[in-house]
């Protein structure tokens, strides 16, 4: 998985983005809501599973554990996590740039297939 990285899920992507500074579970949810303007609300089960996978993969680590207020377990990005995040951002940049570029060039003379061959079906 490490060399040839598959696309991250949105959850993993926003968790990593939120953990450049120490943050706890609820903070990640709030941060993701803010960044996506309310589009993506991470469920607690989804977040818990993703955090554990990321801990196993050592992309994030436990930053601090407040014993008194039990719910404040904070996590932070590791070097590997940061590298993975940067790779993903570059990959996404390439996608977006190519998309914008190709669309702006071709959209003038675009011929929309009539759909008989089914290659342009919107789903």
């Amino acid at each position, binding site marked *: 998985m490490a060399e040839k990285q598959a696309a991250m899920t*949105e*959850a993993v992507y926003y968790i990593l983005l939120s953990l450049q500074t120490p943050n706890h*579970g609820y903070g990640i949810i709030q941060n993701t809501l803010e960044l996506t303007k309310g589009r993506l*609300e991470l469920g*607690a*089960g*989804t977040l*818990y599973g993703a955090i554990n996978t990321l801990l196993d993969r050592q992309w994030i680590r436990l930053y601090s554990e407040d014993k008194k207020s039990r719910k404040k377990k904070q996590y932070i990005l590791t070097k590997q996590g940061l590298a993975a995040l940067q790779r993903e951002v570059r990959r996404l940049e390439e996608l977006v740039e190519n998309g914008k570029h190709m669309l702006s060039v071709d959209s003038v003379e675009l011929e929309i297939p009539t759909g008989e061959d089914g290659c342009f079906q919107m789903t």
Partner: protein
Amino acid sequence: MRKFRLYFDKEKEEAWLNEMCSQGWAMTGFFLGMYTFVPCEFGKYTYQVDMPPISGKLYMRDKKKREYIEFVESTGAEYVCSWGLWLFFRKEAVKGEFKLYTDSESQIRLYQRVRLMFLLIGLYDLWVCMFNTLNFWNYAGDYLLVRHEKLLDLDGGLILVFGLAVVYLMTSVMLGMVARLTIKIRRLKGRTRGFF
């Protein structure tokens, strides 16, 4: 108030709990199909039934379960009760939408956990079925085939037949759930692959 229901599909169970809550009954306890309800404001809570990924050594599981509950509670939800591997959570409806699993990937993993549990129970039931059928035949085969006696006239015949029917029913429900969950998982996998 108490109500007895057997749910094997957690979505249907959640829908029922939310329906009860919209009628002013909040679920507070569960034991072996028996649900406890107390009066509440109409539609005060949204319920979620969960089977979290708690694995590892047995003596660690209790701690992990507590950690998981604390984690979910830190997001504004409330722990209701647990039964076996199942956990029940609720969140006040005014605090917003409540969904524990928000992407297909985590839903797939949830359904895989649930499926594994049903599969193990189903296989165990299947073994019990075969064992008991064999036993039953050893005992009753002669009476039925050679002496042409009626099944229900045998000593304990009714109990035998009833017992067998129950284990066969359980086996088919469990393995049926495995099949249904497999279909669900396949549908979700199609969704994670995107449009094409």
